[in-house]
């Protein structure tokens, strides 16, 4: 029996390694949103490019949309910008920008220089809408269904792979 006991540390270590191995394939920064399957928070905020226009929840419902949280102070947003332009060109889904804690002049200049993939932009200067939405950092992207219910959240740069993933979800809606 005591002989067998000497194998105990090895056995425990084996269990630990299994967990660590599993842990490698999980991203600890990938946070599930508390708002999944809940409605997008209500808001009434100015449009970025047309300050006189007040945007509300009514502008988001009717058809599925992607809400992309971005800002000019966010270098990763520049990285994903071309992918957003490509998605916009395919005309499969409308992209709504949520310009987060930004400066209007800088954001306008950004859209003029880099191209504008957005149907319109919510100008969330104070970051209050971002707070309601639980934004962790820019860029973040939310997929909303036609009723304005949040169905998917992506933290970080939108890549071609993310876009494939989003399309799969959208197709599953069409099949229903």
């Amino acid at each position: 029996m005591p002989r067998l006991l000497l194998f105990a540390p090895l056995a425990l270590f084996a269990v630990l390694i299994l967990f660590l191995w599993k842990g490698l394939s999980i991203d600890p920064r990938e946070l599930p949103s508390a708002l999944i399957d809940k409605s997008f928070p209500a808001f009434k905020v100015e449009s970025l490019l047309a300050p006189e226009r007040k945007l509300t929840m009514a502008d988001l419902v009717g058809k599925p949309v992607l809400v992309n949280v971005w800002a000019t102070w966010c270098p990763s947003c520049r990285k994903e910008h071309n992918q957003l332009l490509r998605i916009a060109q395919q005309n499969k889904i409308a992209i709504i920008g949520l310009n987060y804690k930004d400066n209007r002049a800088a954001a306008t200049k950004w859209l003029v220089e880099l191209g504008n993939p957005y149907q319109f932009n919510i100008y969330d200067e104070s970051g209050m809408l971002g707070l309601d939405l639980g934004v962790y950092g820019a860029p973040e992207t939310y997929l909303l269904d036609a009723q304005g219910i949040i169905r998917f959240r992506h933290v970080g740069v939108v890549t071609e792979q993310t876009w494939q993933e989003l399309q799969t979800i959208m197709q599953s809606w069409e099949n229903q």
Partner: protein
Amino acid sequence: MIPELGEFALILALGFSIILATVPLYGAATLKTLWMQYAKPLAKAQFTFMLISFICLGYAFSVDDFSVQYVANHSNSQLPMQFKLSAVWGGHEGSLLLWALILSGWTLAVSLFSKGLPLDMLARVLGVMGIIATGFTSFLLWTSSPFLRYLPRYPMDGADLNPLLQDFGLIVHPPLLYMGYVGFSVAFAFAISALLSGRLDAAWARWSRPWTNIAWAFLGAGITLGSWWAYYELGWGGWWFWDPVENASLMPWLVGTALMHSLAVTEKRGVFKSWTLLLAIFAFSLSLLGTFLVRSGVLTSVHAFASDPERGFFILVLLVLTIGGSLTLYAFKAPNVKSESSFAWLSREMLLLINNVFLMVMAVTVLLGTLYPLLIDALGAGKISVGPPYFNALFVPIMGLMVICLGLSSAARWRNTKMENVKKQLMLPAIISLLAGVIFPFLYGDGFNFRVFIGISLSMWIITTVAKEFKGKFRTSSSITEKLKQLSPSYYGMMLAHIGVAVTAIGITLVSVYSEERDMRLAPGETVELADYQFKFLGTKPVKGANYTADQATIEISLDGASIVTLHPEKRRYNVKKSMMTEASIDPGLFRDLYVALGEPLADGAWAVRVHYKPYVRWLWLGGLLMALGGILTVFDRRYRQNKSEKQGVAHA
């Protein structure tokens, strides 16, 4: 050219590590003297090329060679020179190179200071260290080379070092910490060699002890320094955050503490052999696990390096090979758990064993708390994080129990102790400690406080029992100075380290109970009062540093109208990374720190200002340093040099 030379030197170092990992071990297994004698020169060669490689990287930093990716990502031409050089270990690749350099340094040290070791033992120890070096140097070369270039188009300037790391603390913190982490590889190598050779006598424990103590001292000093750095650099006055990376350094320290004590028992009494071997394996395994946790991205932490699954996988394989391999060896070759000499329930052996168990329970507590989010996530049960309440609730009571045992063991003798003797010896210290615990909160604070009572009583318990035992040494001796000389450095080291525990405990208790802090909006000319001190805010002015601009505030502190000191906290904006940093300003003192940090600028020249009053906070780190100093002192024991002179004596005869 120079970076390529560095890469080449690293490849050569790997070559020597591979030979070191095979030839001497084969020689020891087949008793071929010539093969075993290769160990020493190989250790020297390995160190030499590792050092060349490291110097090459340092050179690339000093001349701003931004064609090297690692330099471009972690340095900048505006960075002051001392930070350029410390930026060498400011990222994953360079700090891993430092890790490997320190490992080869320890290997060299073992080969130099091992005159009393039998040749086969030395060959095995160096061989085992060669195996570890092979693993880590391969890791460096295959996944994390710091010498990769951006060619042909390279950036004009670098991305700069993280401003948090542009500080004296970072210059010394990682090297000290790595000296400790990697130092446990020596005790590990001795344990593996003992298992391989099957000679599990007291000699093995005696050889391991100085190496273990010194590694433990470095690790303790590194942790202490890290805590101090967090306190003054992070800007909110905390000194320990139970961050996964802090935990990763605390675990080997706890197990190392257990190992030190267990080694002492094994050497002196020949018991706990299997346990001591296991601790030696655990201490180094936890160092490796810490490396994995920090570098694989499995946990989020302020310290974590950029995550990279490929690197994580490589380290995981290294973990399986080294830890799995050594635990397998242990399972087959460790002696059965029966001891050669017996001891009674109330004896120094027993109390040390109990303390060992407490230390292990603490280490497991920390390990579970650190890995729990990962375990839950891996089981698909959601995302959680484990906060300070968990650690404090478990860690603090166990610490208290351990301290009680610490005092008891000073009165206990080896083998067996009579209960009456213990009572006689400890009655007075117990009374003094309890009294001190009751009286202190009345004198210092506003009345009785249970936490202060516990903290002060326990600390006094250590101090009084140590003092009582020290006094007992003079019972039989007539001359005090004679006796002072007779007592060994390791005895003084032990006393110093135990006093260090008490000093730290006092610091922790008082700073957690009596700290005061306030967050205030202060306009120029306004005053805030805290713990009898008046903090007068005189406004801010812009200042310019080497690579940042800052708003520097002037805050005049007075006590009852008499001015004491003027502090200048800053809010810095680093030019390259465009990041804001809070530079706290502190008036340090042995009995209290006054700590001022700037928050956000508000309208009309007003600022959000945070002021802290931190009593006895320095004691925390003072105790940590005393412990480390105690560890170092033990190495100067005569016994460790005796071997050499004995051997020379034989040679002369």
